[in-house]
């Protein structure tokens, strides 16, 4: 029995740790095109900004791979998966046979076509890998100005890292506000102000229509849709990330938005599993198959995949979309719907300066929450949203008064055993 993982981030690590709880002996090979042991991917911002040291970037102790008897092929790109021969084909043609395969290739930045933007233009980067942060640290030695196209989470985090090392940074966001998928007008204004107060400029409602270069083919600025021109020496493209499904192209493995997986994280091909940002599974809010690209989901899916790969039948129940981030001391947490989907849902908002709460209700249940400023005990709300729980009038009162902790007393009183509702259960 040979376990092979393509990808070496949270999902793969979750699978390795699960397999080794069950199967201590059979070989595991993990393959990654990045030349590092598993590292905290979202931490690249802090590494760039100098607030997390290199030795604290690694997700597990130095001896993780040897201790778990894992062969790590790092800095090696997988070309293709040959499902028929049950082999993974590496760049250069080497083939590795698998008995159980996990595809955990994560996401891949999406760069839309823009006039003047060719692969040859220098000093243009995406921001999802440690090497991206390293390249930016290098560029920051020569350049003082950066433009970040895209005001989503990755754009914000790239801006924060650049700003923290003294780069004059401007975010350009097509939507009406930063984090436009999660925030509304009020919370968007608070977030923008926090960024601006800390030195990051924000330009919203427009995007770059042309990239400008100098005589050396280095990026020198952008022209916006409204014909304004902004100068820069560094350009970060942070429009979005899509599931990185390259290795399964031209295979029978079914792909929609991400790789389609069932409740045991199996793909449509026998003995091939997928987990993490590359995989789609059940969104518990709407029952649809969707990609929820966050660390907790990646690890949890990886763990379920690992258990099943090792022969212990285990179900993944799905998850609700959610995220958590802090920008310059302003924490923002969202779970479930962040605004009402239609008139069958109802919103309630509570604003007090930089503290903002929004709840979305449907049919007497909490179906979404946005917390800003005070995010304490947000997990209790996650639990209520995920469980589609009816709220009693008393619970509603606590929710409205912001006493989230009181709700947790109910969670405790109702759990017959001192365990939370596990994300996984034996099938």
């Amino acid at each position, binding site marked *: 029995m040979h376990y092979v993982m393509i990808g070496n981030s949270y999902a793969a690590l979750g699978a390795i740790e699960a397999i080794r709880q069950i199967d201590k002996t059979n070989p595991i090979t993990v393959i990654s095109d990045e030349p590092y042991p598993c590292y905290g991917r979202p931490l690249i911002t802090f590494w760039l900004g100098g607030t997390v040291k290199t030795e604290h970037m690694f997700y597990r102790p130095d001896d993780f791979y040897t201790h778990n008897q894992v062969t790590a092929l790092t800095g090696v790109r997988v070309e293709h998966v040959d499902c028929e021969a049950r082999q993974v084909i590496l760049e250069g043609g080497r083939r590795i046979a698998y008995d159980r395969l996990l595809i955990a290739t994560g996401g891949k930045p999406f760069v839309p076509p823009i006039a003047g933007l060719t692969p040859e233009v220098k000093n243009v980067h995406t921001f999802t890998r440690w090497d991206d942060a390293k390249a930016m640290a290098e560029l920051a030695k020569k350049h003082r100005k950066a433009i970040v196209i895209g005001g989503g989470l990755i754009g914000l985090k790239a801006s924060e890292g650049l700003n923290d090392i003294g780069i004059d940074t401007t975010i350009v966001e097509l939507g009406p506000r930063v984090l436009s998928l999660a925030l509304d007008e009020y919370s968007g204004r608070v977030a923008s102000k926090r960024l601006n107060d800390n030195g990051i400029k924000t330009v919203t409602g427009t995007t770059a229509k042309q990239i400008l270069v100098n005589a050396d083919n280095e990026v020198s600025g952008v022209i916006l849709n409204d014909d304004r021109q902004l100068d820069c020496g560094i350009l970060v493209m942070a429009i979005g990330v899509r599931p990185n499904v390259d290795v399964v192209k031209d295979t029978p493995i079914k792909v929609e938005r991400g790789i389609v997986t069932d409740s045991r994280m199996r793909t449509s091909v026998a003995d091939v599993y997928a987990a993490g940002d590359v995989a789609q599974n059940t969104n518990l809010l709407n029952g649809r198959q969707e990609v929820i690209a966050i660390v907790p989901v990646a690890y949890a899916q990886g763990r379920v995949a690992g258990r099943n790969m090792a022969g212990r039948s285990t179900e993944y129940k799905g998850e609700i979309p959610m995220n958590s981030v802090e920008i310059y001391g302003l924490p923002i*947490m969202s779970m479930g719907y962040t605004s009402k989907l239609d008139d069958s849902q109802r919103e309630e908002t509570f604003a007090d300066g930089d503290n903002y709460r929004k709840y979305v209700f449907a049919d007497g249940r909490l179906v979404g929450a946005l917390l800003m400023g005070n995010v304490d005990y947000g*997990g209790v709300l*996650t639990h209520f949203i995920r469980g589609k729980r009816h709220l009693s009038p008393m619970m509603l009162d606590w929710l409205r008064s912001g006493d989230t902790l009181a709700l947790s007393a109910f969670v405790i009183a109702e759990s*017959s055993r001192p365990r939370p509702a596990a*994300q996984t259960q034996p099938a």
Partner: protein
Amino acid sequence: MEPTRRASAAIPMEFMTTPEVCDGCGLCVVSCREALHLGPDQAPGIQIVTIGDRHIPIVCHNCEDAPCITACMPGCRHRDEASGRIVTDYERCVGCWMCVMMCPFGAIQRIPTAEGEHHGVALKCDSCLDKEIVPCIAACKPHGLKEVNPIDVSSLKRLQAAQRFAPGGDGKP
């Protein structure tokens, strides 16, 4: 350096809270705050929620399938093999609050970034494994906080449930 550990931490033990006997005096909260050197506006590893005349201690449950470990971006939270408790390397915590978002018990506190620090930390009860006497347990006069073997926790919980629903018990949870 490996901190000294109390003898009981060598075998798997769990905290067990008994809401039925908690009188809400709050001494556990005070002792925890002192032990962890927290400020008056910082929430400690144990809190008490009072609903009507009932007091419910809120503390880490050291979950088997712990969402706070799964959610941790830097990987700073793990299960201590000897004791089975979930412990935290706060030096590596970056204050992303993913664990706060995932803990169904509200047992993890956001401690905002302190002066001179780069990141806030997500604080929870790490069982004071370095202390011979656990401050909150020592402070609990009605003995509602205990450290017991996980096997006993399960049977004690069942016994509690039985007593609650027995005639003369205090009714529904």
